[in-house]
């Protein structure tokens, strides 16, 4: 399998980097639209992406009309893609991207250079590690992200500690809790730097959450330990520092796109999303490349990523058949307001503004109640009331903006915000 697909002389119509929900959905959509050769390049042993190690529901409502666990959902996505005639190359890593759709690929069979008419870049998100968070203290064993914990527990039947502190309260922190439960790990506390839990915790799950105390307005100050974690030093609402004895730390959330290929390659990267710069079709600065799924921005659910992937499949099929509008002369979408985390897409192609994503996606960095404002050339062109909190989806119809601005840059900001 490994050699056959990469060595085949048949031209590759679309190469997809990453076989998660978004990449697989795009692949199936392309096949259903008659695109001939669609090749998914996946570096793990199995395709399926992050859900492979999220051994809990709910996955699959949108895609399969039933509630599945992550691994079952991932397996179904793969089966559906295979049935549709998508070629999936596992244990195959894209190591570099080059202009025009050329990819350097490494597999156990060695290295290859492959070339595709279009490339869909769908490498998802990961959580920020300890180093990127600049956490103080001893650099000892026992500090892991949720994703690593899930893979260890669900894919390998192993656990790295037994009494950790969970840092963060996005939804993924709940997954961390579930994973601990499954592995007989007893978290000693969950801490959240913000004034309240970030996630809207499903009320049905709250009783289970209650077994672990959530400390809000509490920050991880440092990690202590000689060889492995012995305590987490935290600072609470009163500003006092204290130690929580523990043997591990789970760093949850703080998602960031896995955009290494873009960063180290020729594709523009948005410092706000940390994903590639795209237009409303997800087209990158090199228009042969399309980005989709959670790589676009942190962070959406598997279902949303899957739906985005399917759309991307549709747009790429259209691009191959008729050509999407030329990207030249696009509107630039930006934000410099520290209260806004990002705005995506970063470019809007005006010649056919109705196509593509339909909405500009945004997130706030803190609780906000005020107005979301779009400005162009120092004039306010659009304004809407906004009440939001971190990690809540914010969407602005592209049509609303494009009807008011025809060129240049549109900058979003928050006005009269009380935080």
């Amino acid at each position, binding site marked *: 399998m490994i050699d056959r697909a990469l060595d085949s002389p048949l031209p590759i119509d679309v190469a997809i980097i990453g076989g998660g929900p978004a990449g697989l959905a795009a692949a199936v959509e392309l096949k259903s639209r008659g695109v001939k050769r669609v090749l998914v390049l996946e*570096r793990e042993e199995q395709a399926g992406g992050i859900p492979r190690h999220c051994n809990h529901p709910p996955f699959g409502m949108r895609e399969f009309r039933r509630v599945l666990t992550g691994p079952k959902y991932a397996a179904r996505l793969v089966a559906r893609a295979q049935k549709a005639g998508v070629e999936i190359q596992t244990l195959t890593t894209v190591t570099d991207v080059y202009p025009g759709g050329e990819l350097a690929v*490494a597999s156990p069979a060695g290295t290859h250079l492959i070339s595709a008419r279009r490339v869909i870049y769908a490498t998802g998100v990961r959580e920020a590690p300890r180093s990127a968070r600049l956490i103080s203290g001893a650099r000892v064993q026992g500090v892991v992200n949720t994703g*690593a914990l899930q893979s260890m527990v669900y894919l390998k039947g192993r656990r790295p500690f037994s009494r950790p502190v969970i840092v963060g309260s996005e939804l993924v922190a709940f997954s961390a809790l579930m994973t601990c439960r499954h592995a007989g790990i007893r978290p000693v506390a969950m801490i959240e730097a913000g004034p309240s839990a970030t996630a809207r915790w499903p009320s049905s799950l709250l009783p289970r959450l209650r077994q672990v105390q959530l400390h809000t307005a509490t920050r991880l100050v*440092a990690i202590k330990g000689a060889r492995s974690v012995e305590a987490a030093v935290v600072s609470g609402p009163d500003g006092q520092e204290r130690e929580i004895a523990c043997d591990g730390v789970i760093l949850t959330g703080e998602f960031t796109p896995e955009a290494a290929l873009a960063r180290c390659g020729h594709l523009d990267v948005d410092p706000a999303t940390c994903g590639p710069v795209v237009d409303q079709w997800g087209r990158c600065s090199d228009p042969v490349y399309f980005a989709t799924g959670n790589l676009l921005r942190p962070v959406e659910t598997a279902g949303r990523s899957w739906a985005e992937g399917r759309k991307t499949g549709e747009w790429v099929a259209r691009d191959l058949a008729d050509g999407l509008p030329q990207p030249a002369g696009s509107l630039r979408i930006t934000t410099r307001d520290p209260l806004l985390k990002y705005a995506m897409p970063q470019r809007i192609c005006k010649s056919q503004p109705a196509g593509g994503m339909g909405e500009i996606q945004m997130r706030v960095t803190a609780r906000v109640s005020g107005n979301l404002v779009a400005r162009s050339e120092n004039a306010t062109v659009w304004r809407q009331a906004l009440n939001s909190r971190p990690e809540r989806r914010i969407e602005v119809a592209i049509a609303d903006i494009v009807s008011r601005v025809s060129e240049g840059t549109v900058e979003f900001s928050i006005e009269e915000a009380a935080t």
Partner: protein
Amino acid sequence: MPDAQSKSQAENSQIPSRDLFDVVVIGAGVVGCAIARRFTLEGAKVAVVEKATDILDGASKANSAILHTGFDAPKGSLELECIRAGFHEYQEIRGELGLAQEKNGAFVVAWSPEEMGKLDGIVAQAHENGVEDVHLVDAKTLQSAEPNLSTQALGAVRVPQESIIDPWSSPYVYLRQALDNGAKVYLSCAVTRGEFDGESWRLETSRGDLRARTVVNCAGLYGDTVDSEVLGDAQFAIAPRKGQFVVFDKAAHDLVKSVILPVPTEVTKGVVVFRTVFGNLAVGPTAEEQDSRTDTSTDQDTLKALIAEGIAKVPALAGMPVTATYAGLRPATDRKEYRIFPNLEKNWITVGGIRSTGLSASLGIARHVYRLYEGFGRRHDALEAPEVPKAAALAHLLPRDWMSAGHGEIVCHCELVTRREIERALSGPLAARSMGGLKRQTRATMGRCQGFYCSARLAELTAEKFEQPVSEGIGHD
């Protein structure tokens, strides 16, 4: 080096051998590794004892990985001599041992008129030190060589041959060459006491006794302790000096080509912006006195200050993701110079206080120490055709394992570490027995995700291999 025996060596068993070694080297830091190699090549029967589970676990664990030319070393010092000899030998052996080296040179950059005033002196000293190609460059030349450097730079000294190397693969292969040619290594083996009977030493270790005609103390951060507890007299005291670093994403690698050095002050060489041979760009180190010989913790305010300093010098670093943070401890003493003392009465050589240039100087130190040993009247026949092992090729410009077929799988995606590399690192006489050892031998988990993607697979591949396991099976409670 028969593998079966090496395996048993690695275990925490008693030292099997009743042999009398010509030389026992205490400590497998970079200095001990280089000395073991030199003595073995000269024909001595060598044993290396290291108290940690893996080698390079002390000062040599974390440094800037710069191979210095010696242009700024103290005039006429032993340190200068050793750096020069070390640099020279590194050039000689790097081909056959497969060592990494990127000779992109350095700029000592002046950021103020006062610093500008010091540049002439730096050039003069470099020339006196025998590094003749060092010269002044003006701001324009500097800017065209390093276009991403802040325009605040006023001028610089160019040091064409300063290089960056792999700080772990080099010492590993030094020791490896000693082992391949008959030396022994005893890990998890701390020397606690010793007795000299006028002819030879009986060293007590945590794994039993060991006999040696001559002892070389290369205990780094514990050099004074070993001298006072084993030899019975220490002429210096170690005052650990911590250096913290920030490593930026590989996307930052191309922002700067040369090593960007500051004009040094009396107290410190200052914070450096430098490439790593693994394809990153790093900023550091700090210089912080502390009592602890083990505490390599990092601290957020310091890391933020380092990032700010990096951005001030290379503005394009703003917003660049941080890949790693780390800290190393220099085995400093109350004096600047190396504390290398031969004790003729007791067949003992102390190699201490190798503070901040040990990686560069180690091969030169080894030659110097061998000459001191000859001064004891010892002679051996140098090996005529020694075994020549190859260093692990982890530097990004070397042919990496993932590029050739049959590696099994890529386990660590960020650093492209293969299963074959992991399996190799987990076997043989220097088999990794801790996560730290595995990282130094393979770079697994040292990339941008820091183990998000590969920790689970690594936990599986290393199960039952480490003294301090990364994980346990869920089955047993």
